Structures are given as structure tokens and as C-alpha cells.
């Protein structure tokens, strides 16, 4: 890539772009994880719905 480039990609531009891309990826990662967590919670909620409230209240003890 760098061997083929005819424009100067810029030392600082190359280094900062990987850092920025990493920073962008962080919230994306968390959003993905939060999404997974929520979908698991929702699925569990759906599973729990048919169950009796009494059963549910005993779960944590």
C-alpha cells in the first residue's frame, strides 16, 4: 500500500487514523455488547412471562 501510494499519506495522518478508528470502534463495541445484553434480558423476560410471579419472586433468594 505505502509502496504504491503516489500521494503523501502523511506520517501523522497514518498514526492518528489508527487511533481514531480504534476510538470509533470502542463505542461500537459497547453498543454491540449492550445490544447483546439487552436482547438476552428481553429474551429472558419473554421466557419469564408465562411463569407465575411467585416463582419469579423466589428466584433471587
Amino acid at each position: 500500500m505505502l509502496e504504491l501510494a503516489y500521494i503523501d499519506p502523511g506520517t501523522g495522518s497514518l498514526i492518528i487514523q489508527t487511533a481514531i478508528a480504534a476510538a470509533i470502534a470502542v463505542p461500537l463495541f459497547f453498543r454491540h455488547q449492550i445490544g447483546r445484553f439487552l436482547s438476552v434480558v428481553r429474551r429472558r423476560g419473554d421466557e419469564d412471562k408465562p411463569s407465575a410471579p411467585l416463582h419469579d419472586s423466589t428466584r433471587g433468594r
Partner: protein
Amino acid sequence: MTAPGVADPATPASGTDPPAGPGDAERDAGSFRDPSGFIFWHDGQPYRQIQRSFAAEWDAFEASPLKQRLIDGGRLIPYETAPTERAQSADAHAVIRPEKIEFISYPYEWTFGELRDAALLTLDAQLDAMAEGWQLKDASAYNVQFRAARPILIDSLSFEPLEEGAPWVAYRQFCEHFLAPLALIARRDVRLASLLRADPDGVPLDLASNLLPWRTRMDFGLLSHVHLHARAQRRYAGNEDEGDIDAAKGARISRQRLEGLIRNLRGTVERLRWEPAGTEWSDYADHTSYGDAATADKARLVEAFVGEATGSRLWDLGANTGRYSRIAADAGKRVLAFDIDPAAAERNYRQLRTEGRSDILPLILDVANPSPGIGWAGRERRSLLDRADPDITLALALVHHLAISRNVPLPMVLGLFADLAPWAIVEFVPKEDRMVRRLLATRRDVFPEYSLDGFRAAATERFEVVREAPIEDSLRVLFLLRRR
């Protein structure tokens, strides 16, 4: 596509740089930066020679689904394969003939919306390319042109195979050519668009960072791609540290993160908004100095005169939001709608996009200070007058601004129109008109020649007066002029 090796004997008689002349091939003065090929002209048609050094990449691109995807999607200019005998030198691998762009315009002549659409096109092409295992190797704003009023990439050699893990080489160029000027217009002042004219390599990021309001650091995209980017450039400037060079050469980025970066750039560009209000003329069309009867009569006369003039390319100078450009386009002309006011031109562009029209392109132009030639030898990006080839000039409610506000003598104004095109449709607005009285209100009248007789005398120096018609219910006169 030429089979490898066939290009070998395809050498013109002279081999190198034939003398430029009508019909002779001439290498384009703006096509020299990328060693993989160049544009040349033959019989008024553009050709692109692809060098042997880029043969493998070119053949792969030609065979790729990406090429067709880009062309079908209206993102890359269509082209035909040309005979290799057309080649300009022995090191040619292939020659193509791209579709000709009717008028080459430059980023400093575009409205905010045009520059923004060109930026989005560039990023969308990069996303298309990445999806097929390719990437843009440059992101120059000069690789975008307007065809049928829509932006399109004209450089078929901009694509190269994506190297897994490599950062985007054109990231810096994209930020300097597109993001920085768009941010400056949207977040500081529309007049900073002229920085593009000052430097053919775009707006330096440290300058953009200095000029942008501090609060733009609250925007993640602008903070990263402009402010921190500028700091990184300063930090690593000069390549003084071997370790830095190694760090840059070793910079890796996964394909997923690279796509995230491009999408973030796209979102940052999309969030930049500029509302065309508060500048000189954008409300002018709604507050003209004459009544409905005069407006209707002027429209009728313009339509009649446009119909009488021959040729299809019309330049509307002082087009404002394009009322008369539309009349000319409805009469079958292809119109460039120039205005000095970026807000008027932007309003025109947005309206035209809504209407879905493709026969009018708004551009920004100060007739008293047209784009000069810039770049290498002053010829890399040609001056506006060097690119001018209209058949008809339309100049309505313009001459008094040039003659009185800018002190340009009438013979020079008419002389410019005569240099531009064989036909001119010109409105003369006399001193007694309310608009001219306003221009003269606070200054000494140093314009004894500015009169209807003076206008006629100036016009007949270069033109023959074909029609002269007073505009009903006003003091103004419309002329149809034909160059002698």
C-alpha cells in the same frame, strides 16, 4: 481490454510530446501527479493512457464487479476502450476514452451543497470499493466533476486493491480537500471556501483547526479528523524520528475499523449544515425593484431572445436563484448559472435537486474576479476564461453592478461578453432606476458615460444590436447582441 503485451508497438510516430495544435494530441496540463496514467486530448475528446507500471491493477479493476457497480451506480464516469495506437508513449498499457464532461468546474466554484455532495460521493465510492476488496488511492476534490448537475468521479485510475490491515492512504487528502473546507463554511464563514482557491492541495488542517470555533471540539468527528489530526501532523512533521517513521509504516487497521472510520467521516460530513441566508442576494428574487408587469415582460423578452440566439450552451451571469436560467433551459439550452453570492447559488442548487433538473448547474463566480489559473505553471487548474466556451451570455441586472459598484467602464464590460460568447443578452439598467440610484446614493457619480447611448456605443464596438426592447413598466432595456 488490451491483452498484455499488445500495447508494445502502440507508439505514435514521434514517441513523445507531440506539438499541441488543433487535432493533435495534447497532454492535459492538470494530469501529471499520478504516475499510473494521464489524460490527453485528441480532436477535442479526452483520452486516458494507462501506464504499464499500473497494468496489473488496471486489468484487475477492469475485470472486477466493482467497475461495473461504480459505473452503473453513477459514481464513476463511463468509458470506452480506445485503440492502443492512440497511446502517447511506448510505456502505455492501454488507452481509454472516458465520456467527456461538458464543463470542468473546480471545488472553489462549487456551492456548499455541491462540495458536500462531492465529499459524500467520494466516501460512498470508497465504501463500494471496500465491499469488493478495493480502495480509493486518492480522494482529491478535483477528481469529482458535475455531469448533468450531479457529482461523478472522473479518475478511473483511482482504485487499487485493498491491502488487508493497511490504513487509508487518502485519509489526509480527504480531510484537506473536503472535510476542512466544509467545516469552515458550516461552522465559521462561507467566504472561507476561497481557501480552496488559494491552495490546490486543499485547506491545511492546522489552519482549519485555528480558524474553527472552539466549540467544534465538542463534535467527535471534527475533534478527531480536523483538530487531533492537525496536532498529529504537527507532532510528526519532518519525519525526524526513525521510530515515528517505523510507527507510520507499521500502522495497522482492521478492515472493520477502517469501514468504521469511513462511516464516521461520512456521518461527520452529513452533520455539517449550512443555511443559505443573510448574504448579499439570496432574498433578492423575492424583493425585486420592479412590479409584476415588468417581471412578466422581462421573462417574455428573455424567452424570445434566447430562442433567437443560436447554440445550446448558455452562461447566465448573475443568475441569482436561477429564475431566468430555467426559462433558458426550458427553451432547450444547457445552462451554467453563475452567481457571486454563495447563498443564492446554494438555494438554486437545492431547488434544482428537488426539481430533479439536470440541465442547469449553479456555480459561484465574481464576474469582476473570475477564477485564475492555479497550481503548476498556473495551468494545472485552468482559469475560468480559459475554460469558457458558451454560445450565449445572459447578463440580467448585472451591468450596473460591474460598471458602477466595481468601476468597470462599459466598453470593458461588453468586451468581456464578446470574448466569452458570440451571442449576448444584456439588460441595461439606467441611472434613473431605483437600484442604480441606491448604488450612487453615497458616492460621487464618476460615470458620465453610463447611459443608454453610452451602452449602445460600447456594445456596437464588438457587437451588432439584433434586438433592443424596453421592458414594460420599467426604465430598463433588454438587448440581443451578436458578435461581429
